[in-house]
């Protein structure tokens, strides 16, 4: 295609980041992270299918500090993508496009996904008995 000399619309970095735009790109980023996170799911399931020994070494790896930080990241990405995805589904139904509603739902998504992440980890640690 021939390069045209027409002016381009300003690039993304020209605009001041807003909650709506930040959540939009975070939705995409968390989606990519979650696809990468499926590698952990594949590993964990295959380890469980291979036997007790493979499973316990997988548990050891995922239960290490690095593993836990990784799982914390994945769990937040999951809850965020889930909540913001529901927000998107409402938009698909034509609901919540007013600026005020869009900001309110955005704030709700951030709050709920943080609460769900904390709750999930508190419950997981409680089930484990603190360890």
């Amino acid at each position, binding site marked *: 295609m021939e390069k045209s000399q027409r002016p381009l619309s300003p690039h993304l970095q020209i605009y001041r980041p807003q909650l709506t735009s930040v959540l939009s790109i975070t939705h995409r980023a968390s989606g990519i992270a979650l696809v990468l996170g*499926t590698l952990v799911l594949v590993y964990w399931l295959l380890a469980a299918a291979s036997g007790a020994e493979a499973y316990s070494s997988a548990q050891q790896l995922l239960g290490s500090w690095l593993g836990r930080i990784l799982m914390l990241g994945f769990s937040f990405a999951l809850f965020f993508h889930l909540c913001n995805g529901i927000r998107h589904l409402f938009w698909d139904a034509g609901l919540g496009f007013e600026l005020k509603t869009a900001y309110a739902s955005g704030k709700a998504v951030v709050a709920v996904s943080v609460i769900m992440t904390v709750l999930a980890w508190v419950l997981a640690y409680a089930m484990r008995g603190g360890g």
Partner: protein
Amino acid sequence: MKFRTPLGRVRGLGSAKSGTHHWWMQRLTAIALVPLSLWFVASLIIVVTAEHALVVAWLHSPLVAILCCALIVAIFYHGQLGLQVVVEDYVHTEWLKVASLVVMKLLCLLLATACLFAVLSIAFRS
């Protein structure tokens, strides 16, 4: 060719009525993933720290195995649709775009199959 009218040339080449298929399947899998992923995370909280025997017993239940398989199909279907849009947005060289899509989609298929195999091999264990 030049004897054909413009209308005759394009007839049958137009919309395959699949224009919204990507969008629709993304939403469909998203809706499925809302309850499925919540169920999976809730189950993981109980199961993930447990012994191997408990995980095996959990996946041995037909309901759990079926829901897990549905989750796996929905995850990878949804994931590859999402990554497809990312690739189409950022990769502008045609051959590289097509190559990335082929590799990405085949990898998703492979990973999904591996997950399904793992779940079923536990579920069908006697």
